[in-house]
């Protein structure tokens, strides 16, 4: 299981994560955040592989990625 | 008459051009005019505002500390400028973008859903002109004709096709506040 979390209020809507995600599951939300941007978000969490490509690309450290600890 | 107007919003909303349009139109009408942008660190990705002074007598200060009217294009600007408006002055809020209400009882408040009106017109870019149209209707600072004249002068020829829709937006804005 993996979890990718976006600190939405920090997102500047640059879309770099959208292009970085190999699963193509990051999209831009319709709504606008406090900064006036459409924030990035992942809807299909289940398709996420936890590769963290999105997070590595994000210039604003918006994204956190977690993965189930393997024994 | 001394009009001291502040136009404020996000960078990228064309705030500075709105101010310049007003200023230029004032000049065409042979009034004394001055335009002063904020150029501080808030520019980048943040807020933008400018002060426009239109007057019948020489302008002492281009710095506007007590505006006779303000146009508000985002919420941070409302917070910043509401307290500064001169008692009895005008505050025009683009309610498409600002959900907060004006609190001061001593100023004249107009909420104008400029983006919605613009989209109705099929051109989301003219929200600013709708606000300007409303302002001119309320304050008479400059005429719509002068603003159209200005566009003719400052737009490059290949953009003159945009003048009619811009004029229409000015009129829509005027209409909207007239109908209130």
């Amino acid at each position, binding site marked *: 299981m993996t979890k990718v979390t976006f600190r939405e209020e920090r997102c500047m809507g640059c879309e770099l994560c959208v292009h970085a995600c190999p699963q193509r599951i990051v999209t831009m939300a319709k709504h606008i955040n406090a900064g006036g941007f459409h924030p990035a978000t992942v809807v299909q969490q289940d398709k996420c592989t936890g590769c963290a490509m999105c997070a590595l690309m994000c210039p604003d450290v918006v994204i956190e990625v977690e993965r189930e600890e393997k024994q | 008459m001394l009009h001291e107007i502040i136009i404020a919003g996000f960078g990228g909303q064309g705030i500075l051009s709105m101010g310049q349009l007003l200023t*230029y139109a004032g*000049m065409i009408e042979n009034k004394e*005019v*001055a335009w*002063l942008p904020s150029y501080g660190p808030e520019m980048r990705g943040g807020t933008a505002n400018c002060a426009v002074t239109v007057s019948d007598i020489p302008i*002492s*200060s*281009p*710095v506007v500390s007590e505006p006779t009217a303000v146009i508000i294009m985002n919420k941070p600007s409302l917070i910043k400028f509401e307290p500064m408006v001169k008692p009895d002055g005008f505050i025009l809020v683009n309610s498409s973008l600002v959900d907060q209400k004006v609190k001061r009882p001593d100023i004249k408040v107009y909420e104008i859903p400029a983006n919605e009106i613009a989209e109705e017109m099929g051109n989301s870019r003219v929200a600013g002109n709708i606000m300007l149209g409303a302002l001119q209707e309320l304050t008479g600072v400059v005429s719509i004709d002068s603003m159209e004249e200005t566009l003719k002068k400052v737009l490059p020829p290949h953009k003159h096709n945009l003048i009619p829709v811009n004029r229409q937006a000015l009129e829509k804005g005027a209409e909207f506040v007239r109908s209130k």
Partner: protein
Amino acid sequence: MSKILMKGNEAFGEAAVLAGCKYFFGYPITPQSELPHYMAKRLPEVGGVFLQAESEIAAINMVYGAAGAGARVMTSSSGPGISLKMEGVSYLAGAELPAVLVNVVRGGPGLGNIAPAQSDYFQATKGGGHGDYRLIVLAPSSVQEIVDLTAKAFDLADQYMNPVMLLADGILGQMMEPVELKDIKPNIPAKPWAVNGMKGRAYRNLIVSVHIVAEDNEKFNLTLQAKYDKIFQNEVLYENYKMDDAEFVMVAYGSSARLAKGAVDKAREKGLKVGLIRPITLWPFPSERLAEAATTAKAFLTVEMSLGQMVEDVRLAVNGVKPVYLYTRTGGMVPVVKDIVVELEKIVQGGGK
């Protein structure tokens, strides 16, 4: 000629071009960058050269070269960038080369900020560089005056073979006002002293600022002094605003003079007999006019966007004859008309500081 709407920074540029300035060397810094931007576009149109230097130091030394080569040439900067030019400015003065420098003052010290300020008055008028030298310092207070004084700056520079500084601030640089580009015409004297190769000359030209023997250097400094005296006699400029019956005299230049004018009007509405003397040349400073005013005025109020710099020149001019008060905002803050009026009221009632 009809008016056009121009930004102060661009007005410096256009007026310079009209005055025959074909060379601009500069380095970007807020709040004056529209001037180099303008020149980058405009100069190639008139066959001139805009060159972005690697630093303000390089820029001022390119100016030195171009001025020595006989051209009308301009540079501009603000705050830290102006400080970096101080060595070069002293060299320009020492070599008696004509050049025009624009300082669009911002808040200091150090990095400070980019807001409008007047805290480089001392640096401009007393000499931020080393040695006994003076810049001619012109302080416009509107975009129209930026145009007029820029043209004048080039003429003064050539006439007196001296660098001239146009001292503005963030407000003046950034604001737009209508201007008339009257008939500014390049009024460039012959420059037989310029280094441009000896061809057609029987003598070689040499431009330096060194006088290694102290006797020679003293002699040179005294000729500079004589030149400065002449400038002081002939070139003082100021504006009187409602001075005819003024009992209280404000002294302010540039942007703060506009606010002071507003305050004069407001104060007059309240029945206070207030006037304004606005120095247009900061050096030469209108000391005589102030001394004269001191004979009739009851008190002076200097309004500045600094901790108080020009006030020293006001005090020197008034020479203890009448009290001189000071009202300032600094660090990028701009005085507010009604606060000035409050200060005036205090003075009228015998207070002030």
